[in-house]
């Protein structure tokens, strides 16, 4: 298990015991336990929490932030992060829909233009971070302002006309279907598919070995011939493209694009990733943890509203729960280091 931070090299333990205890001590496992506890608490506190309607609601939101979180996990594992994802989430659908509504461009071409835009934003982030050597915090913070500013300027600050053109792409990204009394969106398939792909990349592919090595000790990876800068640039591009994809999914689902959509998502996404057990300092990433983290933040946001925490107070609780999770991870890791 690559992601298992808590490896114990005790010689006298039988391999099986070691395997199990490694899993139980892994950060994604402790996050998973907390998630179950939270779900149980919310379910007991409010019967509607597990109602089909509420679960359907949570599942509709989950993929949008979750998809960005997958890219962010890989990026964080390689030792960088991206604060411009929320802004890209807003800009991509604004550009695509403006091209169609005002420019009369075909939707396919417009989506392609949106893809090129996201690739460019990611590439610029990556190139400045790796080739000029400015920290990703500063580069992507500036990019956040540029991208958000661009979205506001081209729309003059107003949301676009609502989207009234159903079609192949809308169905592909935001179609919905019913299973019993649950209503799901196709975006859930995207999230599941992309999650499986990300798990494969990080744990089983050669690329994942490189990503972890770069985040763990960049010089060592470079000395072994790993093209660290190239890998990082592509991860910035992937994260940006995923943010744009999530933005499109969201805009199609609610049939509207707004220049302020996705405001604050960058921090919410980073919170999902680190709550899941990925190290902010790089080298240790877990996609399973990120999925748990995404579920957890969604459940918290939904649950505390349901149990009657006043709307204006709920960020207090979200913040405190995140903090508690991080303290837990830190203590577990300290404990592992001692053992």
């Amino acid at each position, binding site marked *: 298990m*690559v992601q298992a931070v808590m*490896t114990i*090299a005790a010689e006298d333990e039988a391999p099986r015991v070691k395997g199990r205890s490694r899993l139980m001590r892994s950060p994604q496992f402790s996050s998973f336990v907390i998630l179950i506890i939270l779900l149980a608490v919310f379910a007991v506190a409010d019967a509607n929490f597990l109602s089909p309607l509420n679960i359907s609601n949570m599942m509709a939101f989950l993929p949008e932030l979750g998809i960005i979180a997958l890219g962010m996990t890989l990026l964080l594992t390689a030792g960088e992060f991206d604060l411009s994802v929320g802004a890209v989430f807003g800009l991509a659908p604004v550009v695509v829909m403006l091209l169609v509504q005002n420019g009369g461009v075909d939707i396919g071409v417009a989506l392609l233009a949106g893809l090129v835009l996201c690739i460019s934003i990611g590439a610029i982030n990556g190139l400045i971070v790796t080739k000029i050597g400015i920290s990703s915090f500063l580069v992507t913070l500036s990019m956040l302002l540029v991208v958000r500013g661009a979205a506001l300027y081209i729309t003059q600050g107003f949301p676009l006309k609502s989207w009234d053109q159903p079609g192949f792409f809308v169905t592909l990204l935001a179609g919905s279907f019913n299973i019993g009394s649950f209503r799901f969106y196709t975006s859930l398939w995207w999230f599941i598919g992309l999650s499986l792909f990300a798990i494969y*990349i990080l744990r089983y*592919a*050669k*690329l994942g070995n490189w990503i972890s090595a770069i985040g763990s000790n960049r010089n060592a990876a470079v*000395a072994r*011939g790993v093209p660290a800068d190239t890998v990082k640039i592509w991860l910035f591009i992937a994260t940006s493209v995923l943010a744009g994809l999530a933005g499109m999914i969201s805009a199609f689902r609610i049939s509207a694009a707004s220049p302020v959509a996705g405001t604050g998502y960058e921090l919410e996404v980073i919170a999902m990733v680190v709550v899941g057990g990925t190290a902010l300092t790089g080298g240790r990433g877990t996609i399973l943890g990120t999925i748990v983290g995404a579920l957890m933040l969604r459940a918290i946001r939904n649950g505390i509203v349901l149990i009657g925490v006043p709307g204006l107070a709920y960020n207090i609780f979200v913040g405190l729960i995140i903090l508690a999770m991080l303290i837990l991870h830190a203590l577990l890791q300290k404990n592992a280091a001692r053992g």
Partner: protein
Amino acid sequence: MMQDVLRLQNLQKSFGSVRALKNASLTLREGEVVALLGDNGAGKSTLIKAISGVFPVDRGDIFVRGEKVSIRSTRDAMDLGIETIHQDTSLAPDLSIARNLFLGREPVNFGWLGVFAPLDLAKLRKAASELLKRVGISKKLDADALVSTLSGGERQSIAISRAMQFAAKVIILDEPTNNLGVEETHGVLRFVKEVRDAGHSVLLITHNIHHVFQVADRIVVMRRGEIVAEQTVADTDLLTVESIITGADMSALLKEARAK
């Protein structure tokens, strides 16, 4: 006569107006340990960085087994059989021993998938265990253990065995005993001898002259970007070497002191 594995001829390298290397020439033969000594700023690290492909030299030639080569990247150096082990930048602590051993040269299935190809985990683990066994540390270490759980000496041993595994002709050790305890230092030095006995050539960069006399066959001393002395260990002694490094005649000073 043993064959020359690595020959450096009149290497020159400047950084702006600083001439870090002026006409450095050096020969490394098969199965010998050569110690590269020198004070800070003498040009030792510039020299090994040039050999290991971190940056190209401005002028001069590098020969590997008599053939002239050009080393433009760390990859080039590795492909030529030159493995460099830096002080503490050799391993990724969050990766397992097995994954570290094959970092950058991972065995994969479906190689046509490029970087997306799946690692051949069975082969990876098997090769790692065999390697650990061969270098005699299998009893203590599990190939799946994270490097972050290892001691400094164990990490050096892993890094050195990785170099051996790829049948490196030349293994460059940059301050391998820095930050190690006494016992671990001896472990690493013993390992260096084993590496030599297995037929590899070692270029050992160190500050510690005592270690040099324990493992090296020859000593090369650098000062201000130049190689100022080259001697077999048998033909010299600690004081002489020390005086060459600092440029002061230590034995004369000692005689003087005794006379008083």
